């Protein structure tokens, strides 16, 4: 590692962010003693704090670094990610937030058990908390490794992953969730500041958002205006030449670009030359449309099914507060999400060398960290400061998301598996100790998995986590809340099938991508290289594997309906009471009645 290359400003900002985060974690660990504090932050958090905290936790490395990276690498199509990340919340608000809050339970597995009176189902639900969680922690680890390699040039990627993973695991094991709520809220504002300030500065120096986009010629413009129109002041509006590897303007700017047409293009490349053009003309756009729809379904339904976000609704004092919180979350994250694409657009014009970086730490995923340094050419140290700010934001992003995920996954393992299933008679002290050990276990697994994913795009991996949630938790929650005919077997059949299919599809996609890597990962996963030939021969299958939501979500819902109807004798006897609790206004006190009835005979 070359110490002379370390930029002191960048190191300082990142270091301060990390230190403040940890300090807040340790401080609050002193005041979180009881198990319930550990799990749901004492249940008394105001709308403002909770909205900031949910937003803070929601904005992961994908939001902070990944979107900008993907917009730069793939153009227009990548915009679906921020829009769906933000707007998926609407689905949550419309169909799930209110009823779930009224029902009230510590975790989603609790809801699963309570709605269907089935401890077995709880176990199944817990598995998905872990599956979805690990797919979500992997991109955070990549963010950590990328950021640390940027700050400390020469540091190997895996060291960054291990260091950050260890620090956060320790933080969670000691502080639980109460500390996390406060930290998450503050970190939203750090991230908001960190993404917007550099954008304003960069735009004032390098021209506006629209102006920079205008420098990319669409297909129609290239045809009608062969010469590029010179901007009024060439010194201000500059654009560097794009490397060969970069996507061309017209494909990048327009819908159905590089992101959604990869499968079709590699299939065409495998065909004899004369068949390529007709193949593409027939298939490129329709397949791309399918890809787009499937991506949208994954992201929108997935948001409504993310376990670590849903848990936060139980920290609201009542259902009305839960709805207001959701509204504020949508505003806070929506405003945030306007900014990362700007980095992508500017990065394309001003820092195109990132296109040639290896897909890992030197590639487009680092554009948010690296772009502000351009200002150093004119304004010296300001560039480093801005880059330090974005680094701080990046740290806030993956630290907060990773810790949130860790708490929710650990909670599932400790509270649900240990506390309810293995040793229901354990004391609170034993449970807290178990929590700490589970945190270490899950943190370690996340770190190990994270070491393998350097060649994969951050944003894409998060999309996969969403796809699994969309095919498992979303159908479960949606159908359980709105249809009283659901039985445990139906819910389980749907959730398991949809979720596992999505999981396998995501894994298959990842290992085939990893086998193509030119670095170490390519060697480790080289056994999967033949898959790529299969994909080239079957582009539609590849698309359905890369974005499985369009078939796994309907499959899950279909199975839930069919199997529930087939087992309709096992609909819970008190289903009307359950539905009342889910839907009746809290003022009518039906929930308290329900609790009393259930605390009667032991179950």
């Amino acid at each position, binding site marked *: 590692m070359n110490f002379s290359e370390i930029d002191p400003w960048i190191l300082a900002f990142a270091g301060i962010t990390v230190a403040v985060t940890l300090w807040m974690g340790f401080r609050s660990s002193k005041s979180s003693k009881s198990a319930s504090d550990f799990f749901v932050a004492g249940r008394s958090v105001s709308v403002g704090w909770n909205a900031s905290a949910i937003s803070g936790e929601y904005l992961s490395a994908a939001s902070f670094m990944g979107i900008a990276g993907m917009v730069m690498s793939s153009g227009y199509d990548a915009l679906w990610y921020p*829009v769906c990340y933000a707007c998926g919340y609407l689905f949550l608000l419309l169909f799930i937030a209110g009823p779930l809050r009224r029902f009230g339970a510590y975790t989603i597995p609790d809801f699963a058990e309570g709605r269907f009176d089935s401890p077995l189902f709880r176990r199944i639900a817990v598995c998905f908390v872990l599956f979805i969680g690990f797919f979500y922690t992997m991109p955070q680890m990549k963010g950590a490794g990328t950021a640390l390699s940027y700050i400390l040039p020469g540091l190997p990627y895996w060291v960054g992953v291990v260091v950050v993973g260890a620090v956060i695991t320790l933080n969670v094991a000691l502080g639980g969730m109460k500390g996390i709520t406060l930290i998450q809220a503050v970190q939203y504002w750090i991230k908001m500041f960190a993404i917007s300030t550099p954008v304003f500065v960069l735009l004032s120096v390098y021209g506006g*958002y629209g*102006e920079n986009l205008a420098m990319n010629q669409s297909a129609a413009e290239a045809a009608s205006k062969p010469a590029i129109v010179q901007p009024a002041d060439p010194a201000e509006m500059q654009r560097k030449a794009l490397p060969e590897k970069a996507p061309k303007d017209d494909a990048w700017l*327009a819908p159905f670009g590089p992101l959604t047409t990869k499968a079709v293009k590699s299939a065409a490349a495998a065909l004899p030359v004369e068949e390529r053009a007709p193949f593409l003309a027939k298939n490129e756009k329709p397949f791309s449309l399918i890809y787009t729809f499937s991506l949208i379904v994954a992201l929108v339904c997935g948001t409504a099914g993310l376990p670590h976000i849903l848990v936060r609704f139980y920290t609201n004092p009542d259902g009305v507060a839960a709805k207001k919180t959701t*509204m504020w979350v949508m505003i806070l994250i929506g405003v945030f999400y306007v900014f990362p694409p700007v980095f992508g657009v500017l990065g394309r014009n001003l820092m195109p060398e990132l296109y040639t970086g290896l897909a890992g730490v030197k590639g487009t995923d680092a554009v948010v960290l690296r772009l502000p340094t351009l200002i150093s050419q004119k304004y010296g140290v300001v560039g480093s400061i801005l880059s330090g700010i974005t680094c701080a934001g990046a740290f806030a992003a993956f630290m907060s998301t990773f810790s949130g995920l860790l708490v929710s996954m650990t909670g599932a393992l400790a509270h649900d598996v240990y506390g309810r299933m293995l040793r229901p008679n354990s004391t609170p002290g034993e449970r807290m100790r178990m929590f700490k050990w589970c945190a270490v276990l899950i943190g370690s697994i996340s770190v190990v998995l994270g070491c393998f994913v350097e060649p994969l795009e951050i944003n894409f991996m998060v999309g996969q986590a969403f796809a699994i949630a969309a095919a498992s938790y979303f159908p479960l929650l949606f159908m359980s809340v709105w249809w009283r005919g659901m039985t445990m077997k139906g819910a389980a059949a749907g959730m398991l099938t949809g979720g596992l299919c999505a999981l396998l599809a995501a894994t298959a996609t990842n290992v085939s991508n990893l086998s193509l890597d030119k670095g170490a990962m390519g060697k480790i996963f080289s056994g999967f290289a033949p898959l790529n030939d299969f994909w080239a021969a079957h582009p539609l299958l590849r698309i359905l594997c890369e974005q499985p939501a369009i078939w796994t979500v309907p499959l899950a819902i279909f199975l839930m309906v069919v199997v529930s109807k087939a087992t309709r004798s096992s609909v819970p006897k008190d289903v009307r009471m359950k539905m009342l609790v889910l*839907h*009746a206004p809290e003022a009518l006190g039906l929930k308290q009645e329900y609790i009393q009835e259930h605390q009667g005979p032991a179950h």
Partner: protein
Amino acid sequence: MSQSPPEETDFIHSEEFLHGLMKHQLKLSISCAAAFLLLLFGLPLFNYLAPEFMARRVGGFTVSWLVLGVLFFPYVWIIARIFITRSMALEDAEVRNAAEGNKRQS
């Protein structure tokens, strides 16, 4: 032998009340969802069927970039706001309905 609690026969535990609750709530949610889904699935279709229009420039942006990168967000906020206001009003109406229903029965 457990006694059937007396509340079981009153209005708020009746099928009628629950059915009304769920029907009205679902209707509101679905109509808001429809407004959202119209743009969500409509935009790719627009991009597919009318690419020249979607590529027209507005202040440097293409129409499709402007919609997806900027305008989508306030559109969704408006839908959310409408939903929240209406669902809170609906909840108040439900509470009133429950009180009246109980009065009718007693």
